[in-house]
């Protein structure tokens, strides 16, 4: 099973979305609850408590490891072995948020995330959890749709994957760079330059099962 740990930046963005969402809920309810007088104030304070402490735990456990912010960014909290996160790990990582928030703006969490290989903050380390990217939701649609070319050799999956990855990224590369990379595979493509690029893209199509 592949797990692709999410870096600090997408996680911060997910947190920011959650933050804005919670602020919006507080804002709307503060208007409604002020009409209820003291009872409203009590409910408002309990709402603050719930949004701060319970919101992440409930969403992570009951919503497949995704708060709304993580869902928007395509992230998911999982146990380190890839299983869905349960009550105890989720409570741990969200209790430890108070540590990661110190001294300012998630300072410790940021430092830990930058040092750790899987960008875990302290909460993730103690809870033994990871924040991972969901698998690429677009599939391989970014590979150009060119007629399939049969590969002269039977390639192992890792090599096929490299050629597919080349096809997916081809649009972001200059033609010169594409040719430069394709030239490295002259034994496979039996060609150089633009022809080699076309053959590689065609092979990627055939690996992807296109006709």
């Amino acid at each position: 099973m592949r797990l692709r740990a999410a870096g600090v930046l997408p996680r911060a963005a997910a947190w920011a979305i959650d933050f804005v969402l919670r602020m919006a809920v507080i804002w709307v309810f503060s208007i409604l609850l002020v009409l209820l007088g003291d009872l409203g104030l009590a409910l408002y304070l309990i709402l603050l408590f719930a949004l701060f402490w319970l919101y992440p735990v409930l969403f992570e456990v009951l919503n497949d490891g995704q708060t709304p912010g993580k869902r928007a960014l395509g992230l998911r909290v999982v146990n380190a072995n890839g299983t869905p996160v349960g009550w105890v790990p989720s409570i741990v990582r969200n209790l430890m948020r108070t540590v990661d928030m110190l001294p300012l703006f998630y300072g410790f969490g940021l430092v830990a995330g930058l040092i750790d290989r899987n960008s875990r903050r302290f909460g993730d380390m103690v809870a033994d959890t990871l924040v991972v990217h969901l698998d690429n939701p677009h599939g391989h649609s970014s590979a150009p749709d060119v007629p399939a070319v049969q590969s002269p050799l039977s390639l192992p999956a890792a090599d096929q994957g490299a050629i597919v990855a080349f096809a997916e990224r081809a649009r972001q590369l200059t033609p010169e760079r594409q040719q430069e990379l394709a030239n490295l595979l002259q034994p496979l493509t039996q060609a150089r330059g633009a022809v080699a690029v076309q053959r590689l893209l065609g092979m990627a199509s055939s690996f992807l099962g296109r006709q």
Partner: protein
Amino acid sequence: MKQDLFQARHEPEWKAFESWLVGRARPSAKRRALDADGLFSDLDFPAAYRRICQHLALAQRRGYSVLLIDRLQDLVHRGHIVLYRPQPPSWHAAVHFFAADFPRLVRQHWRAMGIAALLFFGSFIGVIVALQFRPELAHSLFDAADLARFEAMYDPSNADAKLGRESGSDVKMFGFYILNNVSIGFRTIAAGFFACIGSVYVLLFNGLFLGGVAGHLTAIGYGGPFWRFVAGHSAPELLAIVISGGAGLQLGMALIAPGRRSRARAFVEAGIDMAKLALGIFAMLVFAAFVEAFWSSIGWMPDVVKFSVGGLLWVLILLWLWRGGRGALHAP
């Protein structure tokens, strides 16, 4: 085996697996799909999942196309999430947790809890006693404005006022106690992460602060209203502070003395206990907030009732922590 043949042979199985996964996520779609061929029952799911794992391994070993491997990987991943999903919370488990597991956990960490109790009650009682003999020490603990505020809250001449608060109705204070006290409890636990330092600080600070208020008010003769106010909720609240401190200390010990485990492993194990203790602390503090808001503030209640209810709560909660879950078999 050629890939085409492999795919043709197992395609129906993969389709059935996928439609079962979809049907599970959307019950209405399941009803529609019931007529589709090959939709298996829930009990067949683990076996089907194992077969697909095997197909994935075969496909990878034989170097089939990336597309096929990706598809199988996707099926395995989605099946994995279903197979290993957390159990839904059950009432029975919750009752068993509070009746047995939580007190047992507190006793299991008796060293950390004992040290936490010593730190908190030691400083608390120490300051109270010290202030009876050297009342002027109060001025080194609090500034004049704070002292004036405490004195106003518990002024015996102001008899018809609600006990223990400057303003606000019972229900509003209930909300405030939940937000404030439970947050403090949770932070105390997490603060132990830094080699226990945070928890020790919070325990000492709270012991000195609460002891300072109690000692000062008693020394100047305002003890009556103060003790009447705090008697009711003192047991759940103070014990919850001590247990949060203890939970923080046992977390910090994973850094200081992990024993024969790596520090990372020790933290993970301490984290599990920390989360369970936090659940119990949450319940205790919500109960304390309820008592503090709706019972402790009642001014007209005779002293006898106030103090015997407070004492009864101390006895009951200590009995719960001491005996709870003892002798009972572990639940399956």
